[in-house]
């Protein structure tokens, strides 16, 4: 293979857009959780488990975590693209990051619905 500077992968817009949308989801979730915590008259373990026992809160939390993982994927991929130059090593790291994030998704579902 010749060594050429190659650009023109024709993607990037969707990820850029997704990063913005997921940021909004995360911001909304943080504000919501902060508000719920402040409104809690007697904060403690019972209040916490009560909060996360309802389906809407669990679903919103999963949405938040999915947003976080997708957001993190784009950010970490950008860092790897900047710092890791050999394409082979980069591909391996990309795959590993994706696998770890997928594991986190499964783990999140287990935590949220396993209580």
């Amino acid at each position: 293979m010749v060594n050429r500077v190659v650009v023109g992968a024709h993607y990037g817009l969707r990820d850029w857009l997704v990063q913005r949308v997921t940021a909004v989801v995360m911001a909304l979730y943080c504000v919501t959780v902060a508000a719920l915590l402040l409104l809690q008259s007697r904060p403690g373990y019972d209040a916490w488990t009560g909060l996360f026992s309802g389906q809407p809160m669990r679903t919103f939390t999963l949405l938040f975590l999915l947003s976080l993982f997708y957001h993190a994927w784009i950010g970490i991929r950008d860092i790897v693209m900047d710092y890791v130059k050999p394409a082979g090593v980069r591909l391996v790291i990309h795959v590993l990051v994706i696998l770890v994030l997928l594991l986190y998704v499964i783990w999140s579902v287990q935590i949220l619905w396993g209580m």
Partner: protein
Amino acid sequence: MKFKIYRYNPDVDAEPYMQDYDLDIEAGDKMLLDAILLLKEQDDSLSLRKSCREGVCGSDAMNINGRNGLACITPLSSLSEPVTLRPLPGLPVIRDLIVDMTQFFKQYHSIKPYLINNDPPPETERLQSPEQREHLNGLYECILCGCCTTSCPSFWWNPDKFVGPAGLLQAYRFIADTRDHATSERLDDLEDPYRLFRCHTIMNCADVCPKELNPTNAIGSIKDLMVKRMV
């Protein structure tokens, strides 16, 4: 006034060094370039590019007290001492304050900085309405001095792949031009994780531009058009 100037002559010096200069000059309404030219009379080995000395040619872009700018339109009175002058960051130094701008112009040329219009040329000019022409304001004034691109960390990191703010401003200048018919191809060309999307809105470009242009804004407009095209 005291000056500290980056010196490097690859034929003689093993590595770059900072040289101190003292110049008897009243700041008044003089510009930095006036002072550098007086210093050059003292020491004619001091090398820099300059031409129009009024902020139009963009030759004397340099790093002035840590900030990129044009020496010819930077008032001496605005500078704190010692005035530290370095070449533009992120590009190879040819000698002293002169950098090799090959990579910068390569990126500029990659966006096809000319009108693409396959219609037969009209008898007179290709006309625009005043409103259409209005869109080019803040874009066409770029003098390609390189202050913005060489202050951009994304360009420092990927100068071979990221077009950089100056090139992207020009890309939008042609996208925004109603006489250009290649908008779709231009957007296709920039839809790339490196060429456009290495911009992380750091905004050093808009901060340093000596013509007070805003490449970040132009980059945002390109992204807006891409979104509009996609949804």
